[in-house]
């Protein structure tokens, strides 16, 4: 058994470079999703129906169709319209557009949860609508939605596994190819699973640290129940909803 693991681990360089690609494209997709989410939330909350309707359409269509289908459309169907995206580009676009719809709803809820009094106070202080949004509403909205937003980054990392179907050489696809050669399924997918766990936990940890440092007063998410391992108290609670 141990020899199976050492045999499978010979490909560790391939796994690590695939994990690196996974992580990089997840970050790129997350950046796109954040931009789309903010724009979408603004559009949905706007007073102009010509902005509200397309945004609502975007959110409903994306959230009611599978992300794998969206990836296939981005890679296989767009060329019929003249848009040729490489596998990685198509993956970033598909994941970004998909999570952007969820972030639209998350940001919208967060913005709505900021008390109206804040906006009224800003108007009294003669801050224009743009400055009100950027300096008063947005920071408080971000506080509200921070755990949910971090969770969406985790979902992007996990969702990138589906990009193997459009030939992106990311972690899951690489594990499948290696598995079809050495036939050590438990070891190959076990290594991939461990790498995913490491990535998602690192993201949660980094996010919790950023929350402690960047938000004033420090943002604490829900307190963990008491555990057997006292060291766990040092790790902040993570990944809500």
């Amino acid at each position: 058994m141990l020899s199976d693991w050492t045999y499978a681990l010979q490909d560790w360089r391939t796994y690590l470079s695939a994990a690196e690609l996974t992580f990089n494209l997840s970050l790129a997709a997350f950046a796109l999703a954040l931009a789309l989410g903010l724009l979408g939330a603004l559009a949905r909350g706007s007073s102009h129906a010509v902005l509200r309707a397309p945004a609502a359409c975007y959110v409903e269509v994306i959230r009611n169709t599978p992300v794998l289908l969206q990836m296939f459309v981005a890679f296989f169907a767009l060329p019929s319209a003249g848009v040729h995206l490489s596998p990685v580009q198509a993956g970033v676009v598909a994941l970004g557009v998909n999570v952007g719809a969820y972030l639209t709803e998350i940001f919208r809820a967060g913005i709505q949860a900021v008390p109206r009094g804040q906006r009224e106070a800003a108007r009294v202080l003669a801050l224009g609508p743009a400055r009100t949004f950027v300096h008063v509403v947005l920071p408080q909205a971000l506080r509200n939605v921070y755990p949910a937003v971090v969770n969406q980054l985790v979902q992007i990392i996990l969702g990138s596994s589906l990009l193997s179907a459009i030939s992106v050489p990311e972690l899951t696809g690489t594990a499948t190819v290696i598995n079809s050669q050495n036939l050590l399924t438990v070891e190959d997918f076990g290594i991939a699973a461990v790498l995913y766990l490491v990535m998602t936990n690192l993201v949660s940890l980094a996010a919790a640290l950023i929350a402690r440092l960047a938000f004033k007063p420090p943002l604490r998410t829900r307190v963990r129940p008491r555990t057997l391992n006292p060291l766990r108290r040092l790790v902040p609670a993570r990944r809500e909803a």
Partner: protein
Amino acid sequence: MNWSTIWSNHGLFTSGLEGTVELAATAVVTGTVVGLLVAAVRTSRVPVLAQLGRLYLEVFRGTPLLVQMLFIYFGAAYQGISNITVYEAALIALTLYEGAYMAEIFRAGIEAVPRGQWEASRVLGLGPVQTFTTVILPQTRTIVLPPLVGQYLSLIKDTSIAVVIGYVELMRQGQAVIDRTSDPVAPYLTVAALYFIICFPLSLAVRRMERKAAPA
């Protein structure tokens, strides 16, 4: 875009829909059961079980569903556990994966029920299982139902992932139509429309439940 070929292949789309609905319906039931069990285990006072529950949640929420499906399907093959069909592998993976998310939803609901309810039930002589099913669980309904149905919605969409291990459902049949017609746009649009038709009512229902649950 050739819509007549879509219509002439409508049998394929129908059989795909059946595959999707069958897998989704079964996984909803099994996933909910697993979620309830794990939530009950996590809120019980036995530390070993609670830690095991936490481990299960960490692993199944921290790894992708596709990896779990591939692991179960190919892993069962190479370890000699015979007779796991594609359907069974997809079902087990979906159950465990969605069950993990549902367990957290149930746990949030269970923990929101005041401790006094547990104590009062014990005073009345009800055993732990009876307390859980007849006293605690019904009171979690308003908190649990909206995210739970939202999770069912995700489950229906996640059945499309089984196409990678070869399960015949809507996505796979869409690909079969593309093989025959070599135009990807119309089949993908049809598949998207079919998923939308199934999912949109559910998503409206979730929205309505959320509004009812949050009076303000």
